[in-house]
């Protein structure tokens, strides 16, 4: 249902009354970020009623979809034409919406091979902090007219505006999928992934947990046979393995609910963390450390690994020079500071509010 005008009115009236808004979908990613400070009264503006697939054109490899549409509904609709979003964005409890996925910018286990969710965005329609309805990008893949505001909005956690709808690039569903398993410790699993990555194998995901490495191969059956003959390993026929990793329902993630998690992004060849309970995706480019605190020990490891770490439920760490530019960009889109986001660009690095 098209709620564009209604949503625009909400923003316009908040702006004129000096009220703050926080944009939300179903709240399926609430555990990732800190709650917006209770001292700041920000009203919830929900996009969940703004639903529907506006245009689906399988032969153009593009879908245009409203923000409130559940990812699951979109995925099922795309599957009818044997297509999908290459980034496999997490659906979490099955509630995740397109707007929430775009706002957070998270990608699933296939990210290094099929690109991120941001990569698939061709165009976007937003309401900025001035209540203006703006369109950037389009429905075509090659498009260099103007600054890439579409992709800038992905992962912005609604700092720059309320995403109304987006046009997303699709990829064909692979004809065949096969998972190979290997019993390897963390360091050996990382090494094996590196070797595999330097050859043109049809790999589309990797996951390591509890000394067990899973590698997903997808494509033509002949390509999978050829790869399996060279890679060896045991076939794993577990149903829904990769969607359970995507949605963080896999047993590895139970530690997340129990004790929390630190999400580490680093070069895949960074050493394995020692003496920590951990898992990895993306050939080691995404590592989960199952712990409730970003200890000195972990901070040192992340520094050595030349990556960055984010303790779930806490603020995203952003280097101060970049944060300054980001703050100015926010002000360019939302000069009246209407949108309050859990990705707080207004705070200083020490957590205090900026001027």
């Amino acid at each position: 249902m098209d709620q564009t005008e209604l949503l625009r009115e909400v923003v316009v009236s908040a702006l004129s009354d000096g009220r703050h808004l926080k944009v939300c979908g179903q709240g399926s990613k609430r555990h990732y970020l800190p709650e917006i400070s209770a001292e700041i009264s920000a009203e919830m503006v929900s996009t969940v009623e703004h639903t529907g697939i506006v245009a689906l054109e399988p032969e153009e490899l593009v879908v245009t979809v409203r923000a409130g549409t559940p990812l699951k509904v979109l995925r099922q609709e795309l599957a009818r034409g044997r297509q999908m979003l290459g980034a496999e964005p997490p659906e979490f409890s099955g509630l995740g919406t397109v707007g929430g996925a775009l706002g957070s910018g998270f990608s699933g286990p296939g990210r290094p091979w099929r690109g991120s969710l941001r990569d698939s965005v061709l165009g976007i329609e937003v309401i900025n902090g001035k209540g203006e309805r703006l369109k950037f990008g389009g429905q075509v893949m090659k498009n260099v007219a103007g600054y890439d505001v579409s992709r800038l909005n992905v992962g912005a956690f609604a700092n720059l505006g309320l995403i109304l709808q987006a046009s997303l690039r699709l990829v064909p569903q692979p004809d065949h999928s096969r998972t190979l398993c290997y019993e390897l410790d963390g360091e050996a699993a990382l090494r094996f992934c590196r070797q595999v990555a330097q050859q043109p194998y049809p790999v589309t995901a990797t996951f390591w947990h509890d000394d067990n490495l899973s590698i997903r191969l997808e494509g033509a059956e002949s390509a999978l046979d050829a790869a399996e003959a060279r890679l060896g390993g045991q076939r794993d026929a577990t149903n829904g393995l990769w969607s359970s990793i995507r949605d963080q329902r896999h047993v590895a993630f139970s530690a997340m609910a129990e004790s929390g998690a630190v999400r580490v992004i680093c070069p895949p060849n960074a050493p394995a963390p020692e003496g920590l309970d951990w898992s990895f995706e993306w050939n080691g480019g995404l590592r989960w450390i199952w712990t409730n605190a970003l200890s000195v020990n972990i901070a040192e490891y992340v520094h050595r690994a030349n990556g960055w770490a984010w303790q779930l439920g806490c603020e995203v760490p952003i280097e101060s020079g970049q944060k300054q530019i980001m703050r100015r960009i926010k002000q360019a889109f939302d000069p009246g500071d209407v949108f309050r986001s859990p990705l707080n660009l207004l705070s200083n690095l020490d957590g205090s509010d900026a001027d």
Partner: protein
Amino acid sequence: MTDWSFNKNLVLELLRGVLPQGNLITDHAGLRPYECDGLTAIREQPWLVALPETEQQVVSIVRICNEYGVPIVPRGAGTGLSGGARPHEAGVVLGLSKMNHILEIDPENSVARLEPGVRNLAISEAAAEFGLYYAPDPSSQIACSIGGNVAENSGGVHCLKYGLTVHNVLGVRVVTSDGIVLEIGGAWYDAPGLDLLAVLCGSEGMLGIITEITVALLPRPDSVAVMLAAFRNFTDAGVAVAEVIGRGIIPAGMEMMDKLAVQAAEQFAKAGYPEDAAAILLIELDGTELEVSGLTAQVDRIVRTAGAYHVDIAESAQEQLRLWKGRKSAFPAVGRLAPDYYCMDGTIPRRELGRVLAEIAALSETYGLRVANVFHAGDGNLHPLILFDANEAGDLEAAEEMGGKILELCVQVGGTVTGEHGVGVEKLNQMCVQFNPTELEQFFALKAAWDPNGILNPGKGIPTLTRCGELGGMHVRHGELPLPELERF
């Protein structure tokens, strides 16, 4: 900010203090090569050219220019086709060609770390010993630089499958207008906070100066096949493209040419193209050996069913080069058909191809100017080449006007005024068609967030609301392409 008066003697002295002798060009003869980029119709002599060798020198230059209000026009290899590196008469051209070192090829993480002046093709050459390559391959890849590729978000014939520059860059070091160095991203995926990397890609040097780039490298595919399919009409060729993609096949490249382009290319390159074809498709498939042979058979069936009357599958690497040669020489070949041509660069949804070509044919009739069409069919990027003779009174203006109409048509059908050449100064007018004033204002606000004093590449990319820029075009005289040694396709 339009007042560019500053104390030239003072600024010159300051710049001399930060650059080695010989890296600052101020004499008329020395400045001449910097008067234009690949858009040679529009020329301007800059005040001076600065050629830094280090990031620290870039920082110093930017700080001086920002303090005294001196415009900076960043320049890579100068191969761009939209005038993005057109100098500013009162400003500094900041040429990054001396920063041309490959800092690291890191096969373990499948990345390369590069200075901005590194040539596109040099990356793949350096990575070859590890069986890796850099995927985006703009037609000027032997000369164009990676810094320029980031500024323009360059594509290439393989971007249907492997994406544009933005999909293959993992990190940059960028000097902001106030001379601060930011390190965004790195040898890993997804940096925290707003996606600054995405907005820097394709920003045409208007937001910051890129001093280092980390790109992703891919393993070379085991096997590649190239095939040609000839059709008696354009519609059938369009159906074939839709069918291939509709069946879930993503070719590495898929190119289409119309009759005039085919004839010109064949006479020029002797690639074995059937000259009686109304349209040809050139399709490249890659993957494992078995996969490619399976795909080739499948695509062969699809194109024949769609109406191809002739299919030529290259049997050897040499044959593949022959088939590609015709397509890659299409621009110079068309250049022999008339004294001048204009190269347009719109993108359209593929389903609109028939309608757009029919309207281009009608415009061709109305203006009395012939048009040859080459088309990156997989991704909808259309390059109509408008033939004209600048010695005929009114021909140039007619070609420009017709070109503008074609781009407006691209916007009307849901496409864009520039697929891969950038806006620069060339397409400022058409930007007014694609974006409304509110959207343009938002672009300006974003620009001001990065560059409050407006010193970086002023007047490019985004038209002011009151003035919609000069027109230009890739204007080719007597078949003499700008930078004729480069392939253009």
